[in-house]
C-alpha cells in the first residue's frame, strides 16, 4: 500500500508495526513477518537518521518508537492510519497476532 511512499515493503511493515504496537524492537518485527532482522534494522536506522523514529536501550534490546517531537509525525501517522484502517480485521489479527501490551505474569492467553 505505502511501499511507494516509504521506499519499500519492509519500510511499510516496520512503520505499520510501530503504529500498531507503539514501540517495538527489530527482532520482534522480523519474527512477526518472518524476514531477516538485518533488513528490519536497516529500515529502523534509516527512519531514525531521518528523525522519524527515536530509540532507547531497554536491557540488551533497542526499542524504537515515533519521534513525537518531529513535525512530520502527524502527517506520517495520518498516512499510516489510512493504510492500517484499510487492512481487514482478519488480516490484522494475523499480522499483529502477538500481544505486547502489559499483562500479568501468570495470566493465561486464551
Amino acid at each position, binding site marked *: 500500500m505505502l511501499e511507494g511512499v516509504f521506499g519499500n515493503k519492509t519500510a511499510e511493515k516496520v512503520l505499520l508495526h510501530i503504529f500498531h504496537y507503539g514501540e517495538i524492537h527489530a527482532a520482534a518485527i522480523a519474527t512477526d513477518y518472518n524476514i531477516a532482522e538485518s533488513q528490519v534494522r536497516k529500515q529502523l*536506522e534509516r527512519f*531514525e*537518521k*531521518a*528523525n522519524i523514529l527515536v530509540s532507547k536501550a531497554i536491557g540488551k534490546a533497542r526499542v524504537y518508537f515515533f519521534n*513525537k*517531537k*518531529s*513535525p512530520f509525525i502527524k502527517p506520517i501517522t495520518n498516512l499510516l492510519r489510512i493504510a492500517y484502517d484499510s487492512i481487514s480485521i482478519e488480516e490484522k489479527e494475523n499480522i499483529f497476532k502477538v500481544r505486547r501490551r502489559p499483562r500479568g505474569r501468570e495470566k493465561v492467553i486464551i
Partner: protein
Amino acid sequence: MKEPKWDSCSEKELWEYVAFHLSLAGINTVLVGGAVVSIYTKGIFVSGDLDLVLQNYQVDENTFQKVLQNIGFEKYSTRNYYKHPKCDHIFIEFMSPPVSIGEDYNIKPDEIKIDGTVIKILSPTDCIKDRLASYIYFNARECFEQAILVAKEQLFDIKSVEKWCRKEGGSAIKVFNEFKNSLK
C-alpha cells in the same frame, strides 16, 4: 578564529568554533538540544554533545564533512556523529532540517556574531519549549528540570511557551501549569 582547548573546552566554545567554520563555508546550522541548556545556564548543566540542525536543504553530507575534516573532525558512526580526536568529552550530531519543536517548525533562532560571521542557536524561549517537548513526548523528567534551569537563568517569553503548549494540546497544558508553578 582561535582553536578551542580541545581537552577542556565547553560546549559553547566548541559550538562557536564549529558553527563559525561551517557558516564561513555557507552552511547554516542551528544549535538545539541539551547544549543550548548548557550555554544558557553557563555550564550548570553539562550536555556532552552538540545537536546541530542543518538549515540548507541543498547541503549534502559530503559538503559539511569536508569542512569538518578541514578543522580536524572525524565521522565515527554510520549516523552523522563527529568527534575531534583531541576532544573526548563532546561530540557533534548533525540533524536534518527543519528546526522544529513538536508541531511548530516556524522557529526563528537567535543570531550571534563571531568575528563578523553569524551563527545560530535556539532562543531561551524556544530552548524551554524544546525541553518541555522532551518531557511531554519522551517522559524525560530531566528535560523538565532543564527547562526550569533555563527559565531561572534567562529572560524568556512565558506567554509564548503557554501558547505553544496549548497548541500542542494533550498533556502539554498540564506540563505548562507544572512548569509555571515550579517557577514560583
